[in-house]
């Protein structure tokens, strides 16, 4: 098992900068190391909380109707980018990710939630399709050198939380597990709004 602890240096800068600067602490041995290392040896992994203004601007420019924009404004978006840097398959499975706040676990808004909402709001099929492509896939067998990216969505919160992402590795998921923990993650732009 490869266990890595990554604390995020998330400050107000994340509102204008795409990604928080991860501070990489692989286990106890390097806990005192001060060098920021933004990558796991096998997996490039980036988190970028998006402000409601960024999200609204993006989807408005794609012709999303006002009712959909209103709904998106009530949502916390975090953009995730990954690339498999190993020579093994790495399994992205969002069911193995946890968002843990002091008050309890935060439940991600899954694709089924959005599909129901878009049906309820009569959002055009083109917008639904575009939205779907901007979400992080629920599952992906990331091949060597393969990138993947997209948003995860959750109810807005002002509370900081820990994102714990677990990845099985190997074609048969039997080559060990990668665990990444990002502490002190925050929904961007929520502080001033609430």
């Amino acid at each position, binding site marked *: 098992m490869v266990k890595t602890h990554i604390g995020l240096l998330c400050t107000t800068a994340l509102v204008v900068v795409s990604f928080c600067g991860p501070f990489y602490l692989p286990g106890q041995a390097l806990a005192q190391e001060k060098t920021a290392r933004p990558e796991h040896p096998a997996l490039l992994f980036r988190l970028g909380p998006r402000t409601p203004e960024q999200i609204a601007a993006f989807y408005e420019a794609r012709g999303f109707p006002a009712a959909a924009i209103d709904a998106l404004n009530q949502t916390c978006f975090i953009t995730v980018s990954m690339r498999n840097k190993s020579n093994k398959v790495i399994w992205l499975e969002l069911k193995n990710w946890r968002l843990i706040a002091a008050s309890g676990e935060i439940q991600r808004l899954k694709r089924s939630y959005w599909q129901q909402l878009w049906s309820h709001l009569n959002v055009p099929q083109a917008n639904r*399709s*575009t939205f779907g*492509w901007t979400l992080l896939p629920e599952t992906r067998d990331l091949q060597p050198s393969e990138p993947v990216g997209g948003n995860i969505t959750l109810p807005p919160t002002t509370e900081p939380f820990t994102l714990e992402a677990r990845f099985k590795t190997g074609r048969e998921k039997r080559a060990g597990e990668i665990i990444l923990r990002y502490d002190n993650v925050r929904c961007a732009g929520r502080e001033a709004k609430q």
Partner: protein
Amino acid sequence: MRAILLAGILLGAAMSNGLAAESLLPRGVMKQDGRPAPALRLKDMDGKLFDLAEARGRWVFVHFWASWCGPCRREMPTIQRLIATRGNLPLEVVLVNTAETEDAVFSFLGIAGPDLSTLLDPDGLVTEAWQPRGLPATFLVDPEGRIQYLALGVRTWDSQPYVEFLRRITEPTS
């Protein structure tokens, strides 16, 4: 005993040929199982209809993209250069825009690939039927209409490893 030894040698040779073929794939290109390609029947920006079913007999490079996708912006010029320089490569290049308006497509291609044309998948349903692993995505469909290769993410299609690979797979076998 000799038969077993010979079988072992032949098996080893077959395996090494397979491995060699795999190792000849350029970075980010995956061999597929040769499943039949889904239907692809769409109009381009001039209203001209393209039907993949009518492209039997030649290789087709099917590329899905969207203007909002940053990697698509980087990859598109390499496709334009591939088309410009591929010479007699027997390959039809087909771009498919996913779920955008003509205005968005026109503005994007004007910058990223002014010599390119694209099919329009206005509601995105054709793209979903192909099940790309993300955008951009490129499928290589053989002359029998079967998906033989999938390219993951951005590829520099005009670079030597990819041009050589495309030349190799599209070469007529004698």
